[in-house]
């Protein structure tokens, strides 16, 4: 395309002596999908994680929360980040496109669930009640906020009868949209839901879970193939060594208790579902 050719041509004329992103000596760039939003507030949250990683890895670490899920995959693909926190679907995308290497995940990510929520007064008590009602999903690339719930709605036979649907871009946005009445129902990551309730951001007397999805494999930390094996291993260890009682602050930011090693093979079901829904 002309645009791309021109982009390339212009960039080729740029000064060549700048260090390429990611090649800066020692700096490890970590990308994260904005599952909890990409604002200043989210960045504050992630600072704790950045400090923990920097101290355990003994090198400077930069945590970058992108503004949408696809941007994290693009960034990992073109090398602007080294290691990324991805969802199930974004991992499959990155793995298929450029061989992203799975590293670690929380134990709960191996059998993760989506929480379908609605205001109590809405009269929605099950998937069958969703016909004709408006529905909020998370990012279009979210596994727990879009892919698997879509599949479950189709299986339940309500996918076609759903009212207007919107992708809010993140899990907290979905919860807020449902609470405000912008959507009749919504679906999101179960751990984000639990945290929103625990933090008092959502009143469980007003909004409640009316359905929990079947389990599926979700979030995983993955490296681009160019990252040396030793660096991958030290990153994995940093997360595998986190313990409740000792690292509570960081674990709370990550919404987990324990980390385990991850395998690409666990995502076969997610991939098959994504193909069925034409999201891959």
């Amino acid at each position, binding site marked *: *395309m*002309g*645009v*791309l050719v*021109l*982009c*390339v041509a*212009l*960039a*080729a004329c*740029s*000064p*060549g002596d*700048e260090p*390429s*992103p990611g090649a800066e000596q020692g700096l490890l760039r970590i*990308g994260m999908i*904005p599952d909890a*939003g*990409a*604002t*200043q*507030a989210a960045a504050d949250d992630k600072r704790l994680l950045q400090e923990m990683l920097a101290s355990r890895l003994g090198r400077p670490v930069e945590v*970058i929360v*992108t*503004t*949408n899920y*696809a*941007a994290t995959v*693009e*960034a990992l*693909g*073109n*090398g*602007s*980040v080294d290691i990324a926190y991805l969802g199930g679907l974004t991992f499959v*995308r990155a793995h298929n*496109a*450029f061989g992203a290497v799975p590293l670690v995940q929380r134990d709960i990510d191996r059998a993760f669930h989506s929480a379908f929520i609605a205001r109590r007064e809405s009269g929605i008590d099950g998937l069958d009640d969703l016909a004709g009602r*408006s529905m909020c999903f998370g990012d*279009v*690339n979210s596994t727990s906020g879009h892919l698997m719930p879509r599949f479950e709605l189709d299986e339940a036979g309500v996918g076609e009868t759903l009212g*207007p649907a*919107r*992708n*809010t*871009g*993140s899990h*907290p*946005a979905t919860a*807020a*949209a449902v*609470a*405000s009445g*912008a*959507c009749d129902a919504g679906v999101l990551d179960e751990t984000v839901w639990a945290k929103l309730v625990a933090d008092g951001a959502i009143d469980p007397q007003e909004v409640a879970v009316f359905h929990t999805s079947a389990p599926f494999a979700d979030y995983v930390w993955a490296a681009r193939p*160019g990252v040396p094996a030793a660096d991958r291993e030290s990153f994995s260890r940093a997360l595998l060594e986190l313990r409740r009682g000792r690292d509570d602050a960081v674990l709370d930011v990550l919404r987990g208790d324990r980390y385990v090693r991850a395998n690409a093979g666990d995502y076969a079901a997610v991939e098959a579902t994504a193909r069925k829904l*034409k*999201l*891959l």
Partner: protein
Amino acid sequence: MLGALFSPDLSPAYLAALAGPIAETLALTLAAVSVAVVAGTLLALASALDAWPGRMLTSVGTALRAVPDLTLAVLCVVLFGLGAGAALVALALYYTASAAKAFAGLLAAVPRAPVRALAGTGAGGAVQALWGLLPLAAPQMTAYGTFVFECAFRAAVVVGAVGGGGIGAELVGSLAAFDLPRASTCIIVTVALALLLERGALFVRMHPRAIAALLALGLALAIAWWPRILPGDHGLRAASGLAAPYLPAEQWRALPRLLAETFAMAAGATLLAAVLALPLAFACSRTASAPALRLISRIGAAVLRAMPEAVWALVLVLWLGIGPAVGAAALFLHSLGALVRLFADTIDAAEPTARRAVLRTGAGRATAALYGALPLAAGALGTHAAFRFDWNLRMATVLGLIGAGGIGQELYEAQQLMHYGELSAWLLVTAAMLIGTERAVAALTGAWRKRVGVEPTRDWLTAPPGFEVRTRHRARFSSIHAAAVPSAPSR
């Protein structure tokens, strides 16, 4: 919960945290506009003198202007990675194309005698351009450049949301997360900056020497930020996907509906805005309105147009829920702000004899404007409204970002899902739609001018009816009006 929108988070910690993003957005705007002005000038000079790269690059520019700037930013993120660099390239490309087009128009209107004289002395092309062409068009080019700056700032707010940085990312992120106190802080900051820039642009127009300093700073920033193509074959893969446009069968079937949705959004918003803008323009008019009313309505219009359409859409989602209605409402509000100011200045700029005659019959100022100025301005008003429709059609495709439906949403989703073949197909559809409409609008406005029988005072873009700005050198030139901002650089 909407009350939260009226209780901004003004805590010192948050305001301090915003300083970085604000500086980034301003610097990004300056850098992109500096590149655009310099490159646009060179291209325009080359095409004015029939040098070979001018012609070719002008046609590339036409294609480029058909791609929404937001989409351009997304493509640049694919190639250059995240960050200000991608947004910089996108904005620089987009506004270079706009500036080249506008500058070429301005240069074409310049008397050619000096160039012929220089050519007669045997002077080369560069000398002819530098001494024979540039000085004559410089005031209008200055006006256009400052004006592009205001536009680019608004675009930088939106593009930042995708390119990964600046106040735009923070604003869109806060709104998407329903963090209304912080979102409203960002909105206040954005509107205040946009209004300040309008003032600043006027200042620069009157002090052309400031331009050299600004350009130097901007180019330095651009060089520091200009990204390198990232190593690896990721960009190539994206490019090869884009090179093979493809739409699945069900998308082909959906195409008429999607086109209709996009057209309906743009047409509805433009029509309503144009109808409401007319009475409000009288309230804003210097010749028809009372000072207090004028001040209030001018400020109102300025606030309406200071918020980019995409930001309006994100705010309106809170009231209107989901769907094309949100898109149409967002386009309407921004268009209203722009058209009110544009209409008011057009009415004020109408040839005054008839208005004075009506005044002498003892009629009031408003009556005089209605019967003495409006009929004369009708042709220009129609032209402005038609071009606003063209602009809104372009913007309707950007609003896909917030799920407003139509072609834009399909385009955005294809990009998000990294279905490059589909993305490329939707880009082609968008380009065909925009170029086709641009042609149709140009033909229609031509017919309208003939029918109304009144030529608008000057070409609407290069010198719209508006303020006469006095420069230090006492040269008078027609400035490009702030209200024409959104429409002008796209052509």
